[in-house]
């Protein structure tokens, strides 16, 4: 590795000026927030379902971005921690029942407890693995983390009383303070819309995603965030700066496992059931695609990347009539295949041509707008980038 500190494919995180663009970006954010809040009132099942699954995956992507995008530690382990979260939730909050695989245990605890327990347990697993992750070079961690995915799948397949084995088991619906996130005969009606499972989940997802987003963003703008970025650039420089590198790598791994655990619970709620194949190596690669396409190191980028990758198959499916070469039989190209081609190619394209990803594209657009609205008297003398 060279000792150069120079240009890394990192998005131009807004280091310039907290003036103009911020103001209109805040305005835009407010509009977006209002729109998001109103979605369940105006849009139907398809969008609510898609939306919540995007929220779930976005939470995971934010966590992975902290580990891989910001701190430079390649990890494929996200599906493992999601599996831990999901499994813990269904065991804690579910009921003992019969499935095609046999009897599965459920403790029938309140779903909120289940969610907290799930996040806690994934954190514990993350903590247990973190000494290993702290000592490994960035890419060796990639392989070691892959091992976790296989171990996770094995456990899900064999621990039948917990997971329901190969066919999995259903996810118990979420419940908050006695309000069940499920369809009922006398639903709460808000603004003329009866609120069922999907409506409540939408808001739950928004809140959780917002919290996840804000925490990560605060982190990146402060002391630990700066240290994480330096660890990615040069562990030696970080060490000299007084950053305990191994401990930091371990802590970030732990943090990302917590994000993944929460994402796992949300994912389980979104799909409605858990099964081993939902948490396979496939998902590891999808997550990495999300953070690369979104722009590594950017929290907003992670969310954008998640939205992109998650919606691809569904959007293609919806518009399949307009795509001539799609077919549903196994010999042809299905929507699932096409989605994979697209995001695989997108990863390659981003790395080759625009490493800062969607976030970088957004930043460039903001910069261009800012420059255009700058009056002549305010001409900035110093170098402008990109």
């Amino acid at each position, binding site marked *: 590795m060279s000792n150069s*500190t120079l240009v890394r494919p990192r998005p131009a995180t807004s280091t310039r000026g907290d003036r103009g663009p911020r103001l209109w970006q805040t305005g835009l954010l407010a509009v977006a927030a209002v729109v998001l809040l109103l979605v369940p009132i105006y849009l139907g099942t398809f969008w609510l379902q898609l939306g919540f699954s995007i929220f779930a995956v976005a939470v995971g992507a934010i966590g992975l971005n902290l580990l891989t995008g910001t701190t430079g530690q390649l990890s494929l382990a996200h599906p493992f921690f999601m599996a831990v979260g999901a499994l813990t939730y269904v065991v804690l909050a579910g009921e003992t029942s019969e499935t095609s695989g046999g009897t599965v245990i459920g403790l029938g605890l309140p779903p909120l407890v289940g969610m907290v327990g799930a996040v806690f347990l994934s954190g514990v697993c993350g903590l247990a693995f973190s000494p290993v992750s702290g000592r490994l070079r960035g890419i060796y961690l990639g392989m070691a983390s892959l091992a976790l995915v296989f171990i996770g799948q094995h456990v899900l397949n064999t621990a039948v009383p917990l997971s329901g084995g190969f066919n999995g088991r259903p996810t118990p619906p979420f419940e908050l303070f006695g309000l069940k996130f499920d369809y009922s005969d006398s639903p709460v009606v808000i603004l003329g819309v009866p609120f069922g499972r999907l409506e409540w989940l939408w808001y739950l997802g928004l809140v959780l995603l917002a919290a996840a987003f804000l*925490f990560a963003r605060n982190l990146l703008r402060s002391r630990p*965030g700066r*240290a994480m970025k330096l660890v990615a650039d040069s562990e*030696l420089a970080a060490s000299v700066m007084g950053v305990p590198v191994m401990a930091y790598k371990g802590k970030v791994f732990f943090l990302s496992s917590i994000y993944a655990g929460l994402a796992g619970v949300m994912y389980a709620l979104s799909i409605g059931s858990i099964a081993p194949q939902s948490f396979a190596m496939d998902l590891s690669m999808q997550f990495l695609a999300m953070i690369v396409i979104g722009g590594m190191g950017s929290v907003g980028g992670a969310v954008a990347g998640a939205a992109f990758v998650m919606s691809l198959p569904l959007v293609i499916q919806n518009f399949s009539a307009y795509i001539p070469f799609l077919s549903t039989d196994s010999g042809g190209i299905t929507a699932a295949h096409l989605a994979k081609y697209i995001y695989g190619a997108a990863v390659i394209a981003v790395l080759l041509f625009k490493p800062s990803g969607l976030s970088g594209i957004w930043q460039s657009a903001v910069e261009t707008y800012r420059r255009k609205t700058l009056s002549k008297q305010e001409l900035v003398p110093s170098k402008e980038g990109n």
Partner: protein
Amino acid sequence: MNIDVPVLEVDDVVVRFGAVKALDGVTFRVEPGSIHSVIGPNGAGKSTMLNVLSGVYRPKSGSVRFGQQELVGMRPDKVTRLGVARAFQNLALSGGQSVEENLMLGRHALTRSGFLSSGLGWPTARAEERRHLRRVHEIADFLDLTPDLHSPVGELSYGSQKRVEIARALAMEPRILLLDEPVAGMNAGEKRYISSLIARIAKSLSISVVLVEHDMEMVMSLSDRVTVLDFGRRIADGTPVEVQADPAVIGAYLGTPAESTS
């Protein structure tokens, strides 16, 4: 004003890379508040010496004492916390981050906000951040870096990057500053600027400076004492005047009379 800057004592330090003796029993003393240069032909062991001082290399034998503390065997981050700050030749900057962020990284050992308090935006974390930002702005101003504060370091000129590197080292509130060829690759004007900057730093902050440098004029005009290395051994140690006249030193740089080609 740093009134508690102790003496740095390097005592018989030996560093081996396989069969090669990079440093062969080097000894010298850096008096508090002085500018002490380490010079020598290429490959003499100067950078190795700095690596030992900052804890990156562990010597085979010998000791390095900063006041009462033995530095040999300490991890680099621990050495840093003792007040030993180093500005690197290859720059220890985070290219994607801004000048301000890099300077704040220099404050890492002086701050304590952790993951939880920072992520949650705790008032204590925020207050600490503001406090240290103010100090960092002062330091940036001292080095004329204020206009570039928000630019990504990777986009600055080489000369500016070097200034940021020195500023970053200063942000660590060091008691001793290790400078590794700070003017390498600079033109005469930039050299003069950095030179006077170093003098200002040593004087107004009363810290010790260990300077590894090739530019003789700069070394001789700035230093209080000079240690000369050749092939890992100390061949001279004294004031600039003494060292300039030392035949061993002249021999090391130009070759002994029998070997010189002119």
